[in-house]
């Protein structure tokens, strides 16, 4: 056992020694967003000058994961021994060369390209899940270990009992980050209680909500954190097998995870007799094929087993009967990514962050009509206003904030009058939205709410798996009614019908997809009813000139005009 401990310590020590031999480190954001903005060219330029001027002994250039502020990428951070970090934004090849020559070479930072790290975008964040982002090279397990990685797993396996680990997670108050907010510790306890030698852990990386990319970033940029979280969960619950279910739309995440699994196996951090004890655990990747419903637990398991991703009724819950009939537990990627830090720093430390019922932090993908967009991690309970005005820098172009959408197709819109709402599970629920997986999309006056509702309804209609009637037919019908309204063919009766149908679909659908599909309609109707009412035409007028009954395709709808009227109504309601 002690051999293994020394092993981990050695790797960390050696890596830190190697890294500290360089006086300067240039951390270049190498995530998808920055790469598409030309990060590779910037990094090549920096590396070129470093080599050319013989600074290679002194300067280390590393491609890291996401630094968060995607709208100002490519981002480059220069770290010098004994000095404050300097961050550069919008770095192209030319700026890269200047940074290398002036800052790295002559020790004079390039002031005009700098972005203060005191900028509220960074200063207001608290990083738990994202603590390694922009700090480590996601391709190297040594870098993860040097930053404290796998220490929590080692301590759990060598010094704690499984029940003790479950207890820590329970005390931390960690709740599921995939949307539902079920207490993670309780779920772990359920699986721990199940008797079977074939238990499995599933990391849900089927991040299907449009507008969310937190899990992708964690899987791509800190893959070992996910593996460590899974291994700790397996130790705590007695699971022997792990699956990571990743969307096929995330090929980089798949490759990074595959590589991470190979590295972890080589270091005996996965596989048989981990840290020399009885505990053995293996992880396999399963790739989705484009089906939103597979985010639902039972559908996800069907997909892992190579079947159509259609959900089944619960109970029995997966912790009783999961993959191939054996007890299984599904945790969201972000939930698992919290675990190593919780174990390392203690349940109390974690529980001190956030609010009474929502402990810890939440990662949000901040997008839409904002000055600063990107990936942020904030303590639960921060207000929407702080996120939008301080971190997000407000709505650009002289427009005004109208609503923020959370929870994707299962969530709702939060209007400006609730901008001081704290972001936690319960407050969002009370407003008719949900925390969801963390997509936060900001809309300004240009966006017409009935069109937002139609957008999500079309999504749910396309993604309904078709197994149960309320969802299959209901989403279709609701979409048609929204089409009629927006196309200027809806009467007061259409609106009544839409509301009735929302209720039917919500209460009668088999799984979460159908049960929550009406949420975007209900929440926009609740807060922006006048926009819908402005679209209504008098009874009878909607039939004029139409060959058939309601909703006939090809009717004289004018989306542009509808958008304009919606906008006008929005101004009235604001």
């Amino acid at each position, binding site marked *: 056992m002690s051999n293994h401990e020394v092993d981990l310590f050695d790797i960390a020590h050696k890596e830190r020694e190697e890294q500290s031999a360089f006086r300067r480190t240039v951390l270049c954001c190498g995530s998808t967003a920055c790469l598409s903005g030309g990060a590779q060219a910037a990094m090549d330029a920096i590396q070129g000058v470093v080599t050319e001027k013989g600074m290679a002994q002194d300067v280390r250039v590393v491609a890291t994961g996401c630094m968060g502020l*995607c709208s100002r990428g490519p981002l480059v951070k220069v770290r010098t021994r004994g000095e404050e970090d300097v961050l550069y934004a919008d770095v192209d090849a030319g700026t890269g060369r200047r940074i290398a020559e002036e800052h790295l070479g002559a020790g004079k930072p390039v002031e005009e390209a700098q972005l203060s790290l005191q900028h509220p975008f960074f200063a207001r964040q608290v990083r738990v899940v994202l603590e390694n982002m922009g700090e480590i090279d996601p391709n190297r397990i040594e870098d993860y270990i040097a930053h404290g990685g796998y220490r929590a797993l080692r301590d759990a396996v060598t010094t704690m009992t499984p029940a003790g680990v479950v207890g820590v997670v329970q005390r931390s108050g960690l709740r599921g980050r995939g949307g539902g907010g079920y207490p993670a510790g309780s779920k772990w306890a359920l699986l721990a209680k199940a008797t079977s030698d074939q238990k499995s852990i599933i990391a849900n990386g089927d991040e299907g909500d449009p507008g969310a990319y937190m899990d992708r970033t964690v899987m791509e940029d800190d893959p070992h954190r996910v593996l460590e979280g899974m291994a700790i969960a397996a130790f705590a619950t007695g699971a022997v097998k792990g699956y990571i279910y990743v969307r096929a739309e995330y090929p980089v995440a798949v490759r990074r995870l595959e590589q991470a699994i190979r590295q972890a196996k080589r270091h005996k951090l996965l596989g048989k007799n981990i840290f020399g004890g009885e505990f053995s655990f293996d992880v396999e990747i399963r790739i989705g094929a484009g089906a939103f419903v597979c985010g639902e637990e039972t559908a996800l398991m069907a997909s892992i087993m190579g079947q159509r991703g259609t959900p089944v009724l619960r109970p029995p819950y997966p912790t009783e009967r999961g993959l191939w009939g054996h007890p299984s537990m599904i945790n969201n990627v972000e939930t698992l990514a919290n675990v190593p830090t919780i174990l390392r720093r203690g349940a109390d430390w974690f529980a001190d962050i956030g609010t009474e019922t929502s402990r810890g932090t939440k990662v949000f993908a901040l997008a839409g009509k904002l000055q600063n967009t990107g990936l942020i991690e904030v303590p639960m309970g921060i207000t929407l206003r702080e996120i939008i005005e301080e971190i997000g820098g407000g709505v650009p172009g002289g427009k005004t904030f109208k609503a923020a959408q959370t929870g994707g197709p299962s969530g709702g819109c939060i209007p400006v009058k609730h901008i001081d709402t704290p972001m936690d599970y319960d407050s969002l629920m009370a407003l008719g939205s949900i925390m969801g997986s963390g*997509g936060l999309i900001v809309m300004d006056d240009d966006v017409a709410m009935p069109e937002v509702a139609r957008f999500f309804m079309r999504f749910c209609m396309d993604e309904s798996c078709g197994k149960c009637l309320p969802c299959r037919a209901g989403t279709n019908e609701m979409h048609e009614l929204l089409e009629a309204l927006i196309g200027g063919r809806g009467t007061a009766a259409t609106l009544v019908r839409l509301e009735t149908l929302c209720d039917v679909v919500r209460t009668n659908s088999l799984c979460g997809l159908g049960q929550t599909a009406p949420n975007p309609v209900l929440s926009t109707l609740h807060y922006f009813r006048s926009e819908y009412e402005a679209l209504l035409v008098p009874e009878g007028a909607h039939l004029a000139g139409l060959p058939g009954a309601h909703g006939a395709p090809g009717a004289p709808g004018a989306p542009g005009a509808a958008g304009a009227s919606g906008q006008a109504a929005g101004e009235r309601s604001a």
Partner: protein
Amino acid sequence: MSVLPTPGAGAPRPPRSPERPADDPRVALLTTQLKKVRYRADALIDVLHAVQDIYGYLSPDVLTTVADALELPPSRVQGVATFYHLFSFEPRGDHICTVCTGTACFVKGADALLEGVTDTFGVPKGGTKEDRSLSLLEARCIGSCGLAPAALVDGVIVAKATPERLVEALRTALATAPAAADAAEATDADGGAA
């Protein structure tokens, strides 16, 4: 035919009836993939991904071969293949334009991007141009919301796109040779440090 085999039980065995001539290199690629998953029925989705990578789409012939190899009823293979959006049953164009229609992109004007491409190139939304030069697809969300509106041209992101810039990127792509099947790889900067 009526009995579903238990997943994970498939022993290594060659496909019962190879439908394609043995000199088609694609058959060898598919066989390699089947061996890699040890002909396990629960690896069906992985195998279908491989088929699409190798052949570009799922043809009835190849689906039959897959059913045979995994000892699954053809109806089950067909059922799974048609359930998931990413599988295509028709050959795609030489170049592929994917417009993200996620929420952030929707808010920032993904519709205008789609319109720009359909109007300029006469390719139908979600379809392929008659001469098979170009396919226009919609993606649910490519997870690049900070760059909205975003589109992919042969797997390479066009960030904060405008219809004009997207059309220009497509013109450039169309003027070059057909995209490699795995153009998406180009967006990755993995040094392969493993």
